[in-house]
């Protein structure tokens, strides 16, 4: 092909610059609705926003590529005819080479998708689905004298071994309104998850064999709890008193089954008013360390991954 034969087409294309369009605006509105939806209602408003975004993205792409799509087909058909017959024929004939090209790319994309989707799913989904719930038997209530702090160390999943070892600070608050009351604080710092320590002397160690294997109980007389990593400090209710933590220490839910103390899931706590059995716990769904559960900063963490 002589370059000069391209001339008129190229000039033509330059005259047909894409005209201004409102589709990007609709696209941006869709993104904004998604973001609002993440805060308010991800399932409803988020999906509406996603639909708006996708529709406008499709329209925008179609609009932006219209000239290319129309022009290229026309040019190629014209050139081919000119070469073969010497007579330029106008028309929308779809050339064989373009068909084979698109089939190769298309089939490659299909094969790639068939491989990628399950592999990506296997890489991502097991972290989020089927998260098991643990129950930890800490032994009979008689092991927990009223008013005495005990540092309880146990395995949440004995089959997994030492890697599941966790620690909680347990205090029996006695009977309150005919129900036994316990303060059970997780030792994971609300800053970045280091193990906080009781600030005070520790006493006798005892062991209790339970359904969860050996539970170690160490008597302690803490004035509060302190974190060795970055210096976070908490009082005996788990309220932050100093340092970088963004909220109080997490707590374990518990139940009493046949006179034995059983730990359930953990939950997050913004702060605690009062102490012991009378404490008002400002309770939230479990959030990771360093994540705010109250105040405006909670908007940064609108959607927690599924967990027990």
């Amino acid at each position: 092909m002589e370059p000069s034969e391209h001339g008129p087409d190229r000039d033509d294309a330059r005259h047909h610059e894409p005209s201004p369009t409102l589709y990007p605006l609709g696209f941006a509105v869709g993104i904004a609705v998604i973001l609002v939806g993440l805060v308010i209602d991800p399932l409803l408003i988020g999906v509406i926003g996603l639909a708006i975004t996708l529709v406008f993205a499709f329209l925008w792409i179609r609009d932006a590529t219209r000239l290319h799509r129309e022009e290229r087909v026309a040019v190629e058909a014209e050139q081919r005819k000119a070469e073969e017959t010497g007579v330029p024929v106008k028309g929308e004939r779809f050339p064989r080479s373009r068909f084979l090209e698109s089939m190769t790319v298309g089939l490659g994309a299909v094969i790639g998708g068939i491989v990628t989707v399950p592999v990506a799913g296997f890489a991502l989904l097991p972290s989020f689905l089927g998260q098991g719930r643990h129950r930890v038997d800490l032994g009979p209530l008689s092991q927990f004298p009223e008013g005495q702090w005990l540092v309880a160390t146990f395995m949440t999943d004995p089959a997994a071994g030492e890697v599941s070892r966790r620690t909680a600070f347990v205090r029996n608050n006695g009977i309150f309104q005919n129900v036994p009351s316990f303060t059970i604080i997780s030792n994971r710092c609300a800053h970045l998850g280091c193990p906080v320590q009781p600030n005070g002397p520790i006493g006798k160690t005892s062991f209790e064999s339970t359904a969860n294997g050996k539970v170690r109980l160490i008597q302690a007389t803490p004035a509060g709890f302190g974190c060795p990593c970055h210096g976070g400090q908490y009082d005996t209710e788990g309220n932050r008193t100093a340092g970088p933590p963004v909220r109080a220490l997490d707590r374990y839910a518990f139940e009493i089954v046949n006179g034995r103390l059983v730990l359930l899931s953990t939950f997050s706590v913004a702060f605690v008013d009062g102490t012991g059995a009378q404490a008002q716990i400002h309770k939230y769904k479990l959030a990771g360390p360093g994540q705010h559960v109250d105040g405006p900063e909670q908007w940064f963490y609108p959607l927690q991954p599924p967990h027990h």
Partner: protein
Amino acid sequence: MPGARKAPTKGQIRRRNLEVAVQYPLDWLEERSGLVGGVKYFLFRNVPADTNWMQTLGAATLTAFIVQAVTGVILAMYYQPTPQGAYPSIVNITDHLTLGWLVRGMHKWGASVFIILMFLHMGRVFLFGAYKYPRELNWIVGVLLLLTGMMEGFTGYLLPWDQTAYWASVVGINLNGTAPFLGPWLAQFLRSGQEISGDTLTRFYSLHMLLLPGAIAGLIGLHLYLVVRLGVTSPPWSPEAAGRDRPEEPSDLRQGLTQPAAHGGGGSE
């Protein structure tokens, strides 16, 4: 007058035969692959006359990566990525296997060397202005290399499976978890669940020795391709540097800088 030429000595004949013997396999390879020419093109490029020792930092970083790759492959022959086996296998490598202490030490300290050299190399490129047109893309590739290199450091730190490794990874994962919006999801992906477990260890092991090194090797290939294609920059003080050859510039100034001896050491400027 061929008779006037001296007959070659024994030594000359031996040398020519040796040259033929060396040349033959290279010619064979070159004819079938073009690889010899390719390697020559890569290694014997023209570079500015006034390149600086600082410009060897990139090659030093590459060397550090190769050391990490080689020692890492050998360590993987003895390491066990299980919660029960990881730490004992590290102890075995360090205390019992012949030269294990050395290879593990090379990998452990080499990791810091790799990161430090990446930063020094980046500083050199920044201070020399070598990231400017037309080399912006290579700066971006370099940033990706820095990121993947840091991820190597993060994932490798967990593998000894001792208290330092465990709690450093807890803190590192939870740091990721505090990122807005997707942070909690990223943290749970890294942990392979809600809690650190044996799956976290195997996940970090796989990332550390398969995915990230593969990505780094590919990015290094791209990085070097761009270096060869775009050429090496002169130092910023170079009088020969591209764009310095302006006609309005007084010629004696440039001569004074480049050839002080010719003027009798006359650097009067």
